Structures are given as structure tokens and as C-alpha cells.
């Protein structure tokens, strides 16, 4: 944004200010170089090394050996990557659908709207660990909802969704949905509010049904917000480990281990930092390629 102005006083101030923007961004740049870029670079460096704290005599340059191991000898890498994709796909899809519906509802005018918004958005502020705590109460066979339903004769006693390999996935999905939907609802509501009411009025005067107005006015307007929020959410859900770490611990039998959970376990428990770094680098590359491809394919920012 070039500021052009005839006022000499202002022009002098702008000219003198050549250094100012650099001083202003310096704290942010230094912080990010020191605590994001440098650590990332060191991860890439270690991914090419054999680096195990417990076996220092083996340490040294390893070339691409860690990556060979990862691609060809480690079934858990592929399994956790597969689970990550399933987890992210299901979670983000459901969060988007419910979040969009929720945003459309609380965008209408009705009595008590402010309170309804505050309430349905509130799980957004809750941490993964707290979500786990709450849902453990709800899922536990003796303290949970199922026990009270069984008291009413509506189901059998002893349902333990977190213990069964078949049910644990959906149990975790539901808990994460509870605190994930508000993210989409908040972002999409913000964007919905910027649609001019006149568009809708004109369309309904022309006799367009509600569905047609949604498809032809609302969705095109929301397109960029949907693309951006789903992308941010995919990355976030991929990286986020709090809930699964505390709710299932990745189990039973690695059934809910995502790639980051696997990395954390590998690095922390076996002290194999070299291999852990290779896993990290792989995850970073996957995320970056996915994000670029997603933005390209979805034609983000393109005028429809």
C-alpha cells in the first residue's frame, strides 16, 4: 500500500521511515527464526543422522537411511499415516457440515440468539485434556450416559465405547466433534454476516427458493472461507495430539495412533531422535504438499 500524498510533512516522515518497518517486524522475525525456523532446520538435519541418546557410539551421518527404514521397514509408519488421514478426513468433514448448519441457524433472527450463540460456541474454548476428562465421564460404564440409559431399560449395562477396537474410533470422533464444530461455526458465521441482505431479498423477490438461494448466493460467497478454514483445520487436526493422547493413548493396540502420536512415542520413549526427526520431516512434507495441492485444486481466491 503505497501512500502517496502531497503534504511535504507527511512525505518527509514516510521517507525517513525506511528503517521503521524492519524495526517493527524484528521481534516477530527473531522469535520465529529462533523458535520455529531453526528447530525445523535442525529436525531436517537430524533426519539425516543416526542420533540415539542411549547409543551414542552409533551416532553419525546416515544419509537417507532413516527414510529408507521409514518407507520400507516400518509398518507402523504406514498404519499411523493411514489412521491420520482417516481421522482428519472424517473429523474435518463432519465438523464442516455441522459447523455450516449451525452457522446458518444462529445467523437467523430469533429470540435468545445471543445466548444460543454463546452456548453452542463455548466448547471451542475447552482444551483437549478437559474434553477427554468430560468424555471419559460420559463413556465410562459406571459413570456414563449408558448406565443411566440402562437404568431406564433402554440398553444393556456395561457399554464401554473406549475399550472396543470397533467403537473407539467413533467415540473419539464424537468427543473431538464436540469441541471442533464451533471453530467452523464461528468462522463461517463471521463470513455469513458479510453477505448483503439485499442479495437475498432480490433473489426471493425473483422467486428463488431457499435451497436455490443457498446454492447460488451463500455457498459461492462462503467458498474462500470454507477452503481456508478446512485447510487450517486439516493441518490442526493432523498435528493435534492432546485429545487422542489422553483419551485413548493411541490404543487399543495402536488402533488410534496418528503420525504425530507415533513420533512423540518414538522420540520420547525410545530416544531415537534421528528416526523421530525423519518421521517429523516426512509429516511436514506431506502437510506442505497437501496444503499447496489443496489450495491449487480448490482455486482459492479465484473469482467464481
Amino acid at each position: 500500500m503505497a501512500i502517496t500524498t502531497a503534504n511535504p510533512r507527511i512525505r518527509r516522515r514516510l521517507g525517513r521511515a525506511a528503517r521503521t518497518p524492519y524495526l517493527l517486524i524484528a521481534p516477530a522475525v527473531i522469535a520465529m527464526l529462533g523458535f520455529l525456523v531453526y528447530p525445523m532446520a535442525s529436525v531436517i538435519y537430524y533426519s539425516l543422522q543416526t542420533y540415539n541418546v542411549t547409543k551414542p557410539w552409533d551416532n553419525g551421518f546416515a544419509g537417507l537411511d532413516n527414510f529408507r527404514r521409514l518407507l520400507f521397514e516400518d509398518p507402523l509408519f504406514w498404519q499411523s499415516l493411514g489412521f491420520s488421514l482417516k481421522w482428519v478426513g472424517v473429523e474435518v468433514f463432519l465438523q464442516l457440515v455441522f459447523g455450516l448448519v449451525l452457522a446458518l441457524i444462529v445467523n437467523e433472527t430469533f429470540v435468545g440468539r445471543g445466548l444460543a450463540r454463546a452456548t453452542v460456541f463455548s466448547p471451542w474454548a475447552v482444551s483437549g485434556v478437559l474434553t477427554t476428562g468430560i468424555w471419559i465421564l460420559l463413556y465410562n460404564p459406571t459413570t456414563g450416559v449408558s448406565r443411566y440409559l440402562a437404568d431406564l431399560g433402554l440398553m444393556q449395562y456395561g457399554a464401554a465405547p473406549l475399550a472396543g477396537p470397533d467403537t473407539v474410533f467413533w467415540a473419539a470422533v464424537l468427543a473431538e466433534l464436540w469441541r471442533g464444530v464451533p471453530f467452523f461455526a464461528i468462522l463461517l458465521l463471521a463470513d455469513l454476516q458479510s453477505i448483503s441482505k439485499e442479495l437475498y431479498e432480490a433473489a426471493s423477490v425473483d422467486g428463488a427458493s431457499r435451497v436455490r438461494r443457498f446454492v447460488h448466493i451463500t455457498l459461492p460467497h462462503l467458498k474462500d472461507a470454507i477452503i481456508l478454514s478446512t485447510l487450517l483445520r486439516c493441518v490442526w487436526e493432523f498435528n493435534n495430539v492432546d485429545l487422542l493422547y489422553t483419551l485413548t493413548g493411541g490404543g487399543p493396540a495402536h488402533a488410534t495412533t496418528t503420525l504425530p502420536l507415533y513420533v512423540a512415542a518414538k522420540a520420547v520413549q525410545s530416544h531415537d531422535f534421528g528416526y523421530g526427526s525423519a518421521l517429523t520431516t516426512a509429516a511436514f512434507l506431506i502437510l506442505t504438499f497437501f496444503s499447496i495441492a489443496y489450495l491449487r485444486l480448490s482455486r482459492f481466491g479465484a473469482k467464481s
Partner: protein
Amino acid sequence: MTLQTAERPHLAPSALAPRTGRKEKGKVGRWEIWVPLGLYLLFTLVPFYWMLVFAFRPRGSASLLPWPITFDNFATVWNDLSFAVFFKNSLMVGVASLVMTTVVALAGGYALARYEFRGRKLFMVGMLCTQFIPGAMMLIPLFEIFRVLGLVNSLWSLVIAETVFQLPLSLILISGFIRNVPVELEQAAWVDGCGRLRGFFAVVLPLLRPALVAVGSFAFIHSWNNFLFALMFVSEQEKFTVPVGLAYTLGEFSVDFGALAAGGVVAAVPVVLVFAVIQRYLVQGMSAGAVKG
């Protein structure tokens, strides 16, 4: 969504005549709002309610009402499980992250919004790229850095890590907001003899309140909720934060559900309070700052 015929003289009532006498096409009915909303409210509130019941009802009770009400669980959690200490730690980390994130993002956001400088594009792209860095996977190198700096087991490690991960989005959000403040307002202040700095504080800053509230509360809530950094960088119990303490109550072999629920309430109260105050700004802040970039 009713048509305001009075304000639209070109829409003569005759044009709408065929419509009168039946329900306006596409109007959203009351039950169409309240049935799905009611169901969703149930989904939102039952978990919260469950936590409150377990926190406030006596041990061994199977009632679904927190009655007779007891504060024993809170006494256990606050004193015996040292949540009082965790709470103080979380509060300090949260406030420090809030201040650092807001100040650094404000400076950088102003530069992005108001100056054209070499490397501006690179800076923007770099910040977006940081969003793809898996935070969970930075644990090892960050731990190494904090070890060298002597910050392991210090709450500062959490403040720094939190601030750094919050910065990029905060900065972009704030710069979007500053861009919406007409530059002429500032120029008027300069002409009146203000320096850039005074002009900024007198003219721009007051207009940024929604953005600052959004960014600051983001930073506070994220830092209050952060689990992984706190778990990895801090191992002395007197430096634990609330989520770590909560995770330990989960990890016991025989979980004390009353204590777990009471700990959950302690963890929830500050963020839910902050959220209740800021949620209106949140939507405003998003619509003005984000996406438009």
C-alpha cells in the same frame, strides 16, 4: 427476512400481491430453527452438565442432580492435588503469553499494513508456512533449545513457545484490522503535530479494540489450554499447569471421578468466562480481519 416494502418504492405492493395469503416462499419457520438448535444445544450442554453433576454431588451418589451440593471434591483438588499452584502457574503463563503475543503482533501488523518494504512478501509467505509446522513434532528441537538457554522447567519456556505459535495468525489478523482503519485519520494526526507513535496510540489503537480483544483472548485461551509443551518442558510438580495436573488425575489407575470433574471445572471456569465476554468480538474480529488479508 421480511420484505420492507415501505423502503422499496419500486417494489409496488401489486408486484407482491400473488404472494400474500400464503407463507412467504423460503421463509425460515420457527420450528426449523429451534428443533435442530435444541438438539445441538443438548449435545453441547449434556457434557458440561455431566461434569458439573460429578463435581458437586457427594461421593458415591448416583443422582443426576448435584444435590445435596458439596464442595469436598473442590477442596481435594485445590489443596491435596495442588490445583491451587497449577492454577497460578497457568494464569501467569496465560497473561504473559497474552501480553507478548499482542505487543509483538501489533508492531508487526502495523508494519505490514502501513509500509511497503522489501521482504514484505517473503515475511507474509514465511508466516503462512509456519502454520504447517507440526507443533507436536517440534518438541525435541525446542527442548534442546530451552535446555541450552537454561529454560527447561521454567514457565518462560511455555510463554515463549506459546507466543511463537500464536504469532503468525495474530499478526495477520491485526494487520487486516489496521488496514481497515483509514490512513487519512492518521495523516490528520500527523498534520496536527503528532509523531507516528503518538498518532498510532491516539488514533489507531482505540479503533483496534475488537482485534486486540480477539487476539489477546486467543492467546490466553490457547496458552491456558496447552498441554503438550507443558507436559514436555516442565517436569517439576510445582511448575505444572492445569492441563498437566488434569491429565495426571486421568492417569491414575482408579480414577477419582469426583476429583476429575472438579479439576475439570477449575480448568474450564477461566476460559469459559473469558469466552463469554469476548465471543461477540470474536465473530466481528474474524469478519473484519481474517480472509480479506
